[in-house]
């Protein structure tokens, strides 16, 4: 097992955990947390490939991850604002009860 493979496995496991959490927990914020974990796993993947792949001096991986972090931040902000707004409307943060789109 090369170090790269090790990093990739870690990233895969992290992704799976984040996915499981996002899909399993009832609370909306925890779903968002799961999504953040998945994003982070992807970032790790990028860095791993940058470090152990070809042309590390091009800094492509780093650039990507920087932008990814920025976008993740923006997305987390908007997502949490949404959760707060929904909480105000429906007085619940339970994902099962936000079924307006049912049908």
């Amino acid at each position: 097992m090369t170090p790269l493979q090790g990093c990739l496995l870690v990233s895969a496991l992290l992704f799976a955990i984040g996915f499981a959490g996002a899909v399993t927990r009832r609370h909306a914020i925890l779903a968002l947390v799961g999504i953040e974990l998945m994003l982070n796993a992807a970032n790790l993947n990028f860095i791993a490939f940058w470090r152990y792949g070809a042309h590390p001096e091009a800094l492509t991986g780093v650039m990507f991850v920087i932008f990814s972090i920025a976008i993740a931040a923006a997305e987390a902000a908007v997502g949490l604002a949404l959760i707060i707004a929904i909480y105000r409307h429906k007085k619940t943060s339970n994902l099962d009860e936000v079924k307006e789109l049912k049908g």
Partner: protein
Amino acid sequence: MIWIVKNLWLIPVLPLFAAGIIAVNKQPARKLAATLAIGSMALGFLLSLCAFAATLGHHGDGVFREVFSFPWIQFGGQWMDIGWVLDPLTAIMLMMVTFVGMLIFIFSVGYMAHDENFMRFFCFLALFAAGMLGVVIANNLFLFFVSWEIVGLTSYLLIGFWYHKPSAAAAAKKAFITTRIGDLGLLLGMVWLYAETGTLNFYDGGKGCLESGALATMLTHATIGGMAVSTMIGLLIFLGAVGKSGQVPLHVWLPDAMEGPTPVSALIHAATMVAAGVFLVARVYPLMSVGGIIGAHGVPVTTSLTVITWVGAITAIFAASIAVAQNDIKRILAYSTVSQLGYMMMGLGVGGVAVGMFHLITHAFFKALLFLGSGSVIHGCHEEQDVRKMGGLKKYMPVTFAVYAVGMLALAGFPLFFSGFWSKDEILHSAHNWPVSHIPFLLGCTGALFTAFYMTRQVALVFFGSYRGHEEKSAHGHSAHAHSHSSESSHDPHESPAVMTVPLIILAGFAILLGFVGTPAWPWFDGYLTGEEFKFDFSKLTEPGTLGLMLASAAIVFTGLGLGWFLYGKRQRKTVAEKDVLEAAQPFIYKLLENKYFIDEIYEATVIRFNAFAAWLCDFADQWIFGGAVLLVKYITVGLAWLYRLTDEYFVNLGFDTGCEALREGGGGLSKLHTGRVQTYLRVIGVALVALIIFLIWGRKA
């Protein structure tokens, strides 16, 4: 083109317009109707005089004939012409029809004065005049047939003028149907003629169907029985004349046609319509006479002409014998007309156009005179028509008596002064010289004897003796004359007004004078019609054949007159119910003659019954076969409709509904995927990701 030939069409069109204007006018506008009708005929007469003048002065260089035709309608690639012809035959007929017609119209003003349907009468009369004049001037088979049919139609309308009388309605129907049988032959003949010659025009500058080129072709073609086509066509056209002119066996309608008003009988059934048949034969005489052997006096003998002669001769004697035993004043005259028409046909057959037409013209005048005179008598006797109930009218109606006597003598053929003598003599003269047989001559002589006899009988019964009409009248006791028994003078016959007697006098004058245009001494009529030279020559009268015949016919006439006077004039019947002299003598023969040889009954038992059966058969077929077919179609349609509805409801609708239900359920089922829960969606995305990866890897591997 002489202007009169171009404008010949005015002569029939003027009465047509008069009829139209009368038809659309409100009732009653009697003066207007009478003026229009009489005026149109008077104008027509003036124009006919112009036409006549145009044809004069051409003797010696062939027959004058001017034709005017114009293309009228196109069918297929061919143009059909319509046109009229002015030749001596046309001119003489035009003058006769317009003049006699005018006089009869004037008479009708008086006769129909009490009738409430005055306007309708004059409308129909004018229409008839238009049709008759159209027949006379037509140069074209089509125009001829159309006018012929108009004449037949108006005859029907006028015979059934008093349509609420069932006998009148039945008589009108009988007339129309009987003449229709003849018209069928005419139509067949005309169609065949057109097919053979390819043109509808009679005279067309050499191309017409009565001109030498066409006639030669028709002579050479042969048809059934080896007869030439010209003979066959001629016989078919003669069939039309048989119907219209009341020859045996289609004569049965003429006596019944007396149901119409007397002016109608005078105009249509004495002078003009029945003469149309004779005119037709005269018009197509070139066709009838083509290819014949020239007999004595240049008269051709052909099969068609022989048939015409025989039919005419048989008709003459047949009708004359019936007239002897009739008791209705108009019936006697009707049978007399049939008999004289037979003479005309015989004359055409044995002597040619001039001989037959001369008798037609003279007959028109004296028969119209006799009919109008009888009308005057009927009017004067308060609508009484049975001669047994008349008598002694000489002192009540002197003018009528005088003119009636003139007419009667002309009809009988009293020698020298009366036209009937000369015209009938021409016929007998030609019959005597006929190479085929002498029998028509003998029949003609016998017929002349009968004619003189029954006319004398009629005049004696009507005008001489004492008036027998009081018996019936006093037995009834009219409500209008409640005090009747004492004042019998109000029942007495009276003389007719001047409007009725003046035309009679004019006709009487012509009955005498017309004879002189056709005597052998001065054969103006003959020469005029045939275009030959003639001159005034008294010596012709004394030629052996001619003189002998004149004396013989004079003897026949005197015998008839004397016999009639002896039996009926001298020994007058006293009462109405007394038996007729002849009836007492020979009851069986008298009964046979009185019942018209039972011809009507024979027809009734055979033809009419067959017709009724055919009608019943057709009705049966219509109701059951065609009606059944229609019903079948109806049921099929209803059944199909029911089937469609069934299909629509159960198959289409159900199928559609089921499909929609399935769609909705499927949609409902599918919509369950939309739980609205985000996490479920995420799960699905996860599964999709896995599937994609597997697909990619395995795809790459393969």
